[in-house]
């Protein structure tokens, strides 16, 4: 059970949060211009890394805000948390 430092509320138990998959996958601005393959790349393809991974999390049972997390999936170490729209910290 992680202890997650919501950038708006502070440290809270993991059960207040919802994981939202890989971060930094931007919805294409002009979907209709994309080929089936390009659209499928956006729609379906996600990484599943053993190691450092960029993730979206939502403080679902708290402030309802989305934010980003850098997590090492091999030992669950949370390396960084930053707000939506902010650049990931340099590794």
């Amino acid at each position, binding site marked *: 059970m*992680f*202890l997650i430092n919501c950038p708006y509320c502070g440290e809270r138990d993991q059960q207040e949060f919802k994981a*939202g998959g890989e971060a930094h996958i*931007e919805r294409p601005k002009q*979907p209709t211009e*994309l080929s089936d393959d390009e659209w499928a790349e956006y729609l379906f393809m996600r990484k599943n890394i053993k190691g450092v991974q960029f993730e979206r999390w*939502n403080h679902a049972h708290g402030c309802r805000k*989305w934010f980003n997390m850098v997590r090492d999936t091999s030992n*669950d170490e949370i390396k960084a948390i930053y707000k939506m*729209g902010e650049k990931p910290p340099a590794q």
Partner: protein
Amino acid sequence: MNKNLRVKSSEYIDETNRISFKFNGKTYHGFKGDTLASALLANNVHLVGRSFKYHRPRGIMTSGSEEPNAIVQVNPGTNRTEPNVRATEVEIYEGLEASSQNCWPSVEFDIGGINNFLSPFFPAGFYYKTFMWPASFWKKYEFFIRHSAGLGKSPTSSDPDIYDHRNIHCDVLVVGAGISGVLAAKNAAKNNFKTLLVEEKNELGGSTVYENNEFNKINNKTPSEWLKKEIEELKNIKNLEIKTRTSVAAYHQYNYLLARENLTDHLEAKDKTNKIRQRLLKIRAKKVILATGALERPLIFNNNDRPGIMLSSAIKKYSEFYGVACGSKNVFFTNNDSAYESAISLYNKGINVEAIIDIREQSESKIVKKVKEAGIKIYWSHSIVDTTGYKRLNSISIMKLSNDGTSVTGSKISISCDCLGVAGGWTPAVHLYTQSGSKLKFDEEKKVFLPNQNTSEQISVGSCGGDFKIDEIIKNLNQKLKDTLNINETDLDSIKVEIDQENSKRNIWLLPSDKPLGKTKPFVDYQNDATAKDIKLALREGFRSIEHVKRYTTTGMGTDQGKLGNMHALGIIADTAGVKMGELGTTTFRPPYTPLTFGTIVGRNIGKFFDIFRRTPMNDWHVENKAEFENVGQWKRAWYYPINGETMHQAVQRESKAARESAGILDASTLGKIDIQGSDASEFLNRVYTNAWSKLAIGKCRYGLMLNEDGMVYDDGVTTRLGENHYIMTTTTGGAANVLGKLEDYLQTEWPELDVYLTSVTDHYATASLCGPNSKKILKKIIPDLDLSDENFPHMSFKESKIGNIQCRIMRISFTGEHSYEINVQASYGKDLWEKCIEAGQEFNITPYGTETMHLLRAEKGFIIVGQDTDGTMTPIDLQMDWIVSKKKYDFIGKRSLYRSDTMREDRKQLVGLLTDDPNIVLEEGAQIVSELNQSPVEMLGHVTSSYFSPNLKKSIALAVVRGGKDMMGKKLFVPMENKNINVTVANPVFYDEKNERLNA
């Protein structure tokens, strides 16, 4: 046989408080402070159970939670019964009953014992190899296995006890209250850290409080005397909470630990009632100090499992702590000095110690000298090659050990004895440490796995950290405390320790016998009957991974998780395979460390607290009017309202007819409602719904369909424009929370530039849906001032009004195809609104209807229910709802996916109507649809999604999804059922009032 073996008064045993209890139906006596194990031993009862596979008689082996053999059923036959309890952990109380497990008909005469004599036929992997085929025989095997192998019985009636959960946040959690834990907790608390100390036993101090080695001193006192004073002082320390009878079950990431606090298990039945039995502590600690101690290892030799063979340290504890002699003719078998302390403990109490068998060549420590002076015979460089005694040990045979330790030589000496203490060294209890994700490293010199790489703020102190001698313990504890707590001085700085320095050890994982391995039974896992031979066999058969060997031989897979024998299993594997133990790694220790009751896990979340349920403001009326309810998500919704003993079918037929012929009323309060405001609200709706929203006039309503990005229908509902920048969206009852979450996600992460604010108002409004040709007249009676003409208040429009003083929002929208109004008021007026409608509708025979009738009425109209007629694989095109997909809009969620090659396939499953050729046959929802009957295998074209008998059409109707169904209008298909094939015809899914004339009726 039943002589009393109580040998001295102990400060932990209250001999004035005599307690009677029953074991296997027979009454015994013990004292307050005894465990079931110590009380049985005092009564000279060693035989307490049978082993799992061979049903060999087994006795009490340990004095703690690592016990593999003495597994009992407590209070059998009662609703408080509990299986798989370790007799070494049960504190006795008046009226306690316990019985052996895994034996039938009794522990003294066990039919399964025959397996012992058949054991050559039960090698490793026996169950896998034998019971797998022929497959048809499994039922017979199962009967045999289940009957003869007992893992205890679960209670058959409900649990009378109360369980609880508690969250605890602390600066420092100390696990284990032996000498290291006590000193760590004391120093942490004294330095203003909010500290929690948990201990699985009912007393603090661990083994040091009965430490009797006169050559060890702390500040010139015996360690026992010194530590008792330290414990005494804990009472006066602030910031320190101590929980005894509390065992940590799990250690998760980020220092989150679960512990079970036992509150009433040691009390008599009359004192248990109305009290919390066990409490699950959910602990979040800034720093964790593990002081979990070490477990003594047995030695692996031929027939090392007989009742009367125990750990040497357990014999010492029973003697010193409980005042019980485990035997009258005792022998010890050892590879280090620990056994000598146990021998001296017995000797000092006048209990006979026949001999010590030591596999070492010699030892010069003071305690060994003392044993020699006491005249106890020591056999150096000897090993036990066999033991005898079926239900109780009666002799051992020893032989001289070769220099390399792999064989025995010379003549055999037989020694008669009734109790054998084995001492194979110590294994640090690193289970919790590894659960936290931290990594171990093998110490080749000490032959133990030790903490190496921590993943969270934690330290391991005392013997669980690899320090076994008191001087090492104190010195290293002191340094670790200073480092982890960031303090400069501690109580420990001034402590002076003297110890009996010598403690050599000779490690041999598997001791030889004069017989070959195939003819001997050296048990490695006592509970699961895995022997060294099984492990070697597994290696011969090609198993290499330690995890595979574990599963194949079942070593370490009992309820004790192999706490005693795992290290030996690893050692034997390493020796046999010729690899280093460090390279093998260990098997994974998984939570819980000791078994937890289900009660502890669920706590108070039982019965009506099992899940949240939500009730509408009109709920009391539904209850008073005898509605049946159904669960929709967490909501309790009125399902139908039977009168005069109607069946559900009869009630629904009546309700459905009434709603179309005169007037019906539905509680629609559960529909999700999201208030949407902001200058970009219209643009936002354009992006989330498939149809266009910019031109919706204020005061108008529109039905919308929401897709996932993959083009599949996600939710639907009517949204009303209340003002220029203000909308109210309705969602399905079950989808409300997810829709809000999804919309928030897009707003925050993809379109942060939009000025839109979302608020869930589902619980803020109560909604009554008034429908039927007389609904207009009823509403007129309730709000006479409101102009209800089609010109002023047409279908798909909205009015704000008042019922008396109460503000209301009325939408003229319809989910039944009838002329209808949805009236919304502030939730607290919901019941009042409902009663007003019922009263006003009296003259029109207004009929309340529930969700079942709602479903039937909408099915007559071919309206879908998301989640019933769709399953996450249906596009709007599949649903024949092309009309709602805007061709003009540049983009909306899911639009691009509607043009993927897969979603454009003509032969996708599509929503159609189905009519049975026999109008009285109602199809089963979920039934399969085929086009051929005399063909096998036959392709499944689709399935029935909704099916009802329509009282208004007087025939059976159904909705279905059928592959290529759009082009099958009028085609004959079949629905094969178990006993018959039903002929059906594909039809238009709109069965009733295709021209929508009744909306304005």
